[in-house]
């Protein structure tokens, strides 16, 4: 390949060819304010893809320390190399933080955009397989792994409360539900059963505030459905994270309106977690540069919406994953909707275990983050970075209690709880596709999917599809 003089080489890595998925060498370079990933397949030629529009933030994010933590119990051998050996293999550089269990491949929508290519037909995962997944994870990673129940649409299963209960019974401390909200919007007893079984968080597909956006991305008018689902979650006492898939030309101009919606629906809504579209699974068309929306563009849109009240310095890369996978920030929301960055210093997670508020007893299962979880042996103790990432999610994505003040003498306690309820998380994660895949990033992936054969596969490897829709790890939809 040839280089123009205006290019700034930023690094070398490996990727895959978006046509044949063969592993190929790749470079990252900046041209103007945009960072590209470029690679050349011997059979299919060169291709360059914009991956980060904003050189200033790229250089800032690049300074972020990389936290590597080896897999204590590799499940697959290192053989063909990344991303072929996933399971996890001994060369993976990060432990599991959040693990997806796809409990069904059926869905009650048929979205034009779906990483899982789900349809109305499909199959439910047998309960025996789900139980085996949980046992495998407990053995390999311990009970502090966060579990996301995903699909397909998990709520299409009537026995989902039993799956939540099983997950809790096996010793997992955090369970979130990845859902379109359809069933939650009209079945309060089902939602109540999920919460009673131990559901911690509803990870709600929420692409915008207008039916035009829902129609474009989900093939249905869902604005009122989302409203009712959030109201139901409030009544049921479970926190909600709004999860917009951002697509240029469809809903970029609703980013500000989504944030305003979140503010109005706090404290039920605890955070907005944006996901710029990745070209995996079912998408309307292969990507073009103008159909990419990168993380710094999301941050710029948020900063512009808040009219300068927040800035780039209020956002940070993730602590466990590769820094170019995500950003997050926490903000106090005033009564008038004004945002102020939450600048409380992070609590060190690796200090000595902190005694409880004297003299109140501490429950046995709330040990310091770097001590063993119940039933966990030393091999399953999480790395500090993974523990921190899990702690952030537990705090910012679960229900916030706002007790009625009954005693002015305890106002100092209530102030802490009120502050938490007024804190809004704004974050984003961009998944990789066959055009943007950077194996340096993939090796640090801490979001994994359990395959039917008990392998834990990094999300971006599991869902990887080439231009023709062929997969590397995921079984093709029936």
């Amino acid at each position, binding site marked *: 390949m040839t280089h123009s003089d205006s290019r700034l080489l930023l690094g070398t890595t490996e990727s895959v060819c978006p046509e044949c998925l063969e592993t190929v060498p790749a470079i990252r370079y900046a041209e103007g304010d945009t960072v590209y990933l470029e690679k050349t397949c011997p059979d299919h030629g060169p291709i360059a893809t914009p991956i980060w529009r904003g050189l200033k933030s790229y250089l800032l994010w690049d300074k972020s320390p990389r936290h590597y933590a080896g897999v204590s119990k590799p499940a697959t051998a290192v053989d063909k190399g990344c991303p072929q050996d996933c399971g996890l293999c001994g060369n993976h550089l990060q432990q599991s933080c959040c693990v997806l269990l796809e409990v069904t491949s059926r869905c009650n929508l048929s979205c034009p955009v779906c990483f899982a290519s789900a349809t109305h037909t499909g199959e439910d995962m047998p309960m025996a397989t789900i139980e085996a997944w949980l046992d495998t994870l407990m053995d390999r990673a311990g009970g502090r792994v966060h579990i996301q129940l995903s699909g397909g649409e998990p709520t299409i299963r009537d026995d989902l409360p039993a799956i939540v209960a099983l997950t809790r019974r096996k010793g997992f401390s955090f369970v979130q539900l990845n859902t379109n909200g359809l069933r939650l919007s009209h079945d309060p007893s089902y939602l109540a059963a999920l919460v009673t079984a131990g559901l911690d968080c509803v990870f709600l597909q929420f692409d915008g505030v207008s039916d035009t956006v829902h129609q474009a991305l989900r093939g249905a008018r869902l604005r009122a459905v989302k409203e009712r689902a959030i109201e139901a979650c409030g009544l049921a006492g479970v926190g909600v994270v709004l999860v917009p898939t951002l697509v240029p030309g469809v809903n970029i101009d609703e980013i500000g309106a989504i944030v305003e919606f979140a503010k109005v629906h706090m404290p039920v809504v605890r955070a907005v977690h944006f996901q710029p579209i990745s070209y995996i699974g079912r998408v309307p068309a292969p990507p073009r540069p103008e159909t990419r929306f990168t993380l710094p563009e999301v941050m710029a849109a948020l900063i512009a919406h808040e009219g300068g009240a927040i800035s780039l310095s209020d956002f940070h890369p993730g602590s466990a994953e590769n820094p170019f996978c995500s950003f997050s920030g926490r903000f106090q929301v005033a009564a008038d909707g004004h945002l102020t960055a939450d600048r409380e210093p992070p*609590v060190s997670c690796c200090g000595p275990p902190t005694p*409880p*508020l*004297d*003299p*109140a007893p501490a429950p046995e299962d709330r040990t310091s983050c770097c001590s063993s979880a119940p039933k966990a042996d030393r091999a399953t103790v999480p790395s500090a970075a993974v523990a921190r990432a899990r702690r952030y999610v537990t705090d910012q994505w679960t229900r916030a209690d706002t007790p009625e003040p*009954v005693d002015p*003498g305890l106002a*100092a306690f209530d102030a802490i709880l009120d502050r938490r309820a007024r804190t809004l998380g704004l974050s984003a994660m961009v998944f990789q596709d066959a055009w943007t895949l950077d194996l340096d990033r993939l090796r640090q992936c801490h979001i994994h999917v359990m395959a039917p054969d008990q392998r834990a596969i990094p999300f971006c490897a599991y869902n990887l599809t080439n231009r023709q829709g062929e997969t590397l790890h995921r079984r093709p939809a029936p």
Partner: protein
Amino acid sequence: MTTSTDPTPPNPEDLICAKCDTPLRIGKVLASYMGQTFPVDLPLCPTCGFVYVSEDLAEGRMLKVEQALEDK
């Protein structure tokens, strides 16, 4: 003993310090956890300084505050 949702907590003078045999009274207490300090009013013994925390407070508001600080 009271609950955190009980609007009529007992008179602290109904609580007697087992060590000093003195009625408790409401006083300023500094509770601290994970580097943060909370000035709160709780029943305490005016003689020995013993602080009384009801089970409901310990397992209610106090526990929620602990969890909020631990998860930061």
